[in-house]
């Protein structure tokens, strides 16, 4: 998992900021006008939450090289912490509880990051599994976390900032989009900073990093903290903006794997990769299921179709990783380079 790619310097003349600004412009101005509620509720909201979780995990795994299988646990910590801050502190604005939930997730992330000081690779992955199991166990075991709700399910509070309501599908989309945009920008700044370079140094060769004076222990813990902070807030978006109800079992090991796949398929050590990967993993199953039920729905029942979709999706992922081991990001860059050179030639 040591792919030392810094973001490629664009070869075209477009300034670096142009593409993200254009995308944000479309996301803010055009999509809310043309999107249906299906687009927001079933595609964009999970896409945004999972992308943000991918950004968070990419800081830890892609940049700092620490493999983690506990992402879903930090999602859960974020979601349940925000719920409790919102419930138990009167008058705390929603953004306040979201920020504090990130802080709680970061603290727990640092605790579970401590073994990384001694363990590496697969051994570390196994120790982050402990976070996965412990958090889920604690949230189920102590009903205080879910306000003694009989079934352990929490209900999301209404989203409003300074009196403006964000409860419609579009509102929750804009709410998520803003948080994702801000945090992604901060993550982008972070990985370009000295700390970000320390992450990469630790990932590529820990001993060499220590010799040139990189504080390895501190760097690893910062990576765990920042990553868990971002993932925790992704958990809040998942619970409050997307599903609007959450049970601890919703954040199981499958979810952790999903986020890990997102960054592997999207591209390790790349902020954009998380978005590409999340788009692929959220949208492809839906497309497959639509195409499948449209073409073959009359012949097979939904169970058979669903099973065959899994096979197709799995096959696609394997094929893709063979053809493009550096992830969707490098695939995208190649396409862009080719089209730009072709355009310039004409």
């Amino acid at each position: 998992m040591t792919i030392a790619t810094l973001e490629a310097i664009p070869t075209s003349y477009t300034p670096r900021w142009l593409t993200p600004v254009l995308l944000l412009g479309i996301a803010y101005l055009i999509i809310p006008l043309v999107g249906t509620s299906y687009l927001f509720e079933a595609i964009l909201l999970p896409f945004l939450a999972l992308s943000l979780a991918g950004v968070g995990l990419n800081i830890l795994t892609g940049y700092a090289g620490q493999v983690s299988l506990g992402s879903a646990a930090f999602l859960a910590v974020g979601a349940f912490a925000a719920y409790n801050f919102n419930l138990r502190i009167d008058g705390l604005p929603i953004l306040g509880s979201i920020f504090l939930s990130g802080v709680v997730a970061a603290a727990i992330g640092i605790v579970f990051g401590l073994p990384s000081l001694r363990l590496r690779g697969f051994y570390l992955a196994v120790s982050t599994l402990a976070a996965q199991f412990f958090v889920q166990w604690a949230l189920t075991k102590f009903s205080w976390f879910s306000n003694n709700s009989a079934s352990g399910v929490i209900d999301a509070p209404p989203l409003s900032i300074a009196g403006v309501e964000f409860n419609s599908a579009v509102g929750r989309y804009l709410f998520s989009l803003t948080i994702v945009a801000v945090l992604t920008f901060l993550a982008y700044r972070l990985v370009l900073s000295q700390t970000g370079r320390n992450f990469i140094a630790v990932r590529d060769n820990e001993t060499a990093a220590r010799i040139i004076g990189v504080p390895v222990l501190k760097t690893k813990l910062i990576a765990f903290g920042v990553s868990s902070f971002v993932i925790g807030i992704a958990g809040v978006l998942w619970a409050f903006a997307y599903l609007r109800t959450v049970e601890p079992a919703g954040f199981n090991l499958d979810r952790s794997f999903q986020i890990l796949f997102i960054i592997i398929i999207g591209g390790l050590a790349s902020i954009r990769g998380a978005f590409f990967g999340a788009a692929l993993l959220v949208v492809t199953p839906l497309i497959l299921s639509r195409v499948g039920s449209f073409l073959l729905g009359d012949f097979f029942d939904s169970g058979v179709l669903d099973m065959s979709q899994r096979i197709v999706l799995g096959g696609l992922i394997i094929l893709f990783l063979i053809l493009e081991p550096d992830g969707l990001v490098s695939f995208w860059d190649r396409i862009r380079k080719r089209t730009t050179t072709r355009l310039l030639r004409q």
Partner: protein
Amino acid sequence: MRMFNKAKLLAIAASLVLSAAIPVTHADEQYFPLQSYRVGPYAAGGTGFFGGFIDYLNLINTRDGGVNGVKLTWSEGETQYEVERGVEVYERLKNTPGVAAWNPLSVGIAYAMIDRITQDKVPLITINHGRTDSTDGRVFPYVFPLLLNPYSETSGIVNYIASKEGGLESLKGKKIVVLYHGSPYGKETIPIYELLAQKYGFELQQIEVPHPGNEQQAQWLTIRRAKPDYVVLRGWGVMNPVALKSAAKVGFPVDHIVGNVWSNSEEDAIPAGDVAKGYTAITTQASGAEYPVVKEIVKTLYDNNRGNLEDKNRIGSVYHNLGIVNGILNVEAIRIAQEKFGKRTLTGDEVRWGFEHLQLDPARVEALGAKGLFHSINVTWDNHEGNGYVTFQQWDGKKWNVVSDWIAPDWALLRPIIEKSAEAYAKEKGIKLRTTEDAVTATN
């Protein structure tokens, strides 16, 4: 990715657009969006229940030409019992015209839908499960835990154990262990068992089995140490046969295990083999294919190869019959609402009115060909459960045999607890309690 040439991409895009387009609905159709699950750990429940539900809708269309001429339509979206997929299917199907009601058969999905269906004004049916306090129609106008909510189930099981011991007084000093599934569904009844233990003076221990429940050695060793008089099995899916087998391993007598309403199927007992013989479980609908409505389904559909179940041996099984009963309740709600609003495609809110007047006495149940299949139901605007009766069945190694009369849970005892919980929810959410006047009409 070169293999994806333009033509293929175009073809896929075109089929996507077509499939996303809303199917053309004729004037008089009522549509059931089905969030079914035919794969995954709970497929046995999903295929049986949705099979029975679809079979009944199909029967009404084939035999009667629909409900008063209004054809019933449906389509399925696979959820695998996962909340995210359930929400996706909800968003995909909710704009189809003429949606009658949602029947997800999953507590997790139902919880995630409560806000959404309340906003969309379409009923959400959680037969035999769901959120207990949604029984209170003052707070949850669109949610219907029909026949049996989890608290009534608990009360029914405790009453049954009492009847075996010689009355409620004899429960004093007895010891009951509840082995529950580690999920929202499993945990729903923890407080009510505690309350009943206090009231009747029996000793209680509740033990969780983590989802999915294929490893229970530790739990059953604890049970062996505790030496309870009865074990209540509040399981789901694979947890049930594993529980019966583990019980046999530690030597706990199987006839002192009482299964709840999601541990009562053939799919729970058969995999356990011989050790399941003598296992007793609660049910709201008897199993067996001897009821007239089931016979008609066999004659009309299965004999013409139009039945939904792949395995004909499952006709009349517990889940299949539950699906049929669920079909009866949905169809009758539509019929009742049509009497008031006209024999046409109804809005979700009008169907809600129908469910709130879903009163089927034993005579009507008999007329529907379901005598003995289920007892009766009496839903009102503020009681969304409808006072279903329960019965107990015992596994003889091959099939279930009914071993009790129809038993009434202690509704009067439970109602204040349900109201208290519902009122707390209303306060948290800022919901104004409905009154009788709010319930008499429906918007179209």
